[in-house]
């Protein structure tokens, strides 16, 4: 299984994502620059955190027009796995691949600490290794992670089981304590917390590891286990 980690000017969690794939899965992974126009070689695309384009105008507003984002939309359409973390989540909402938007934290503070998340949906390709309702510890680091969507969108998120993670102790004012959501099909997930920073007990938590193992397991289930590394 091949992973791509997108890199925009200002991405700063790209190396963490790369290492998380390398260390937890040992599967091939490449950095892919934002100008790339072909992602056909990849099975999973990670859109990392950071401050792409300096967060100018709005977080993710400019990155969504990077050439590579057309390819991300195509990959999502083809049913490939797309995971946006933090700034990656903001980019995916700006691109319209996920509903809603991320506002300034209610506290106006940049929050950087561990959070406890509840796994609401363990049927996405990214969460099958968790139990439904399980509580996991994953760190956050953001100033603009306050998820917003209107009532109607929230109702449809609930009806389609698109809420993937919620905070047990809401750190930013997000609607319905939402920490992460998926698209209707379930192959695109966006989340503010950083699973790639929680892949080893030395880092304080290894609860994020299972997101990566879930992706690989789901991919193997659909592609057979005889894939050559």
């Amino acid at each position: 299984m091949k992973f791509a980690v997108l890199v925009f000017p200002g991405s700063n969690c790209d190396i963490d994502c790369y290492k998380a794939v390398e260390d937890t899965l040992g599967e091939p992974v490449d950095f892919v620059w934002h100008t790339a126009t072909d992602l056909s070689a990849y099975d999973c695309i990670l859109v990392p955190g950071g401050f792409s384009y300096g967060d100018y105008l709005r977080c993710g507003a400019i990155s969504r027009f990077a050439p590579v984002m057309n390819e991300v939309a195509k990959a999502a359409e083809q049913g490939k796995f797309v995971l946006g973390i933090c700034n990656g989540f903001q980019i995916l909402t700006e691109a319209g691949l996920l509903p809603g938007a991320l506002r300034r934290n209610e506290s106006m503070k940049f929050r950087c600490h561990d959070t406890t998340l509840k796994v609401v949906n363990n049927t996405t390709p990214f969460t099958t290794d968790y139990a439904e309702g399980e509580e996991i510890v994953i760190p956050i680091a953001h100033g603009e992670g306050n998820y917003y969507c209107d009532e109607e969108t929230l109702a449809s998120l609930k009806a389609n089981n698109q809420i993937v993670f919620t905070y047990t102790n809401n750190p930013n004012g997000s609607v319905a304590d939402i920490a992460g959501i998926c698209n209707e099909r379930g192959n695109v997930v966006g989340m503010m917390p950083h699973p790639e920073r929680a892949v080893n007990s030395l880092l304080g938590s290894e609860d994020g590891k299972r997101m990566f193992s879930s992706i690989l397991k789901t991919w193997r289930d659909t592609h057979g286990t005889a894939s050559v590394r």
Partner: protein
Amino acid sequence: MLKAKVYVTIKKSVLDPQGVAVQGALHSVGFQEVESLRIGKYMELTLDTNDREEAAKRLKDMCEKLLANTVIEDYRYELEG
């Protein structure tokens, strides 16, 4: 040449934490009359066209596509010249 001014503000229905914080600060320095405060963005554009109708149409496009996120923001614009 036409000049355009674009104003982007957080929707009334959406909490504006920056606005709330600045309102609180004004209260604490004695401006009790401030009942609400919303923070937005102001942009000045110079457009290489004299066709007002076409310019207005394209400005709307710019706002919808990039300048505002219509999930949480409202926009309005003025054309001059």
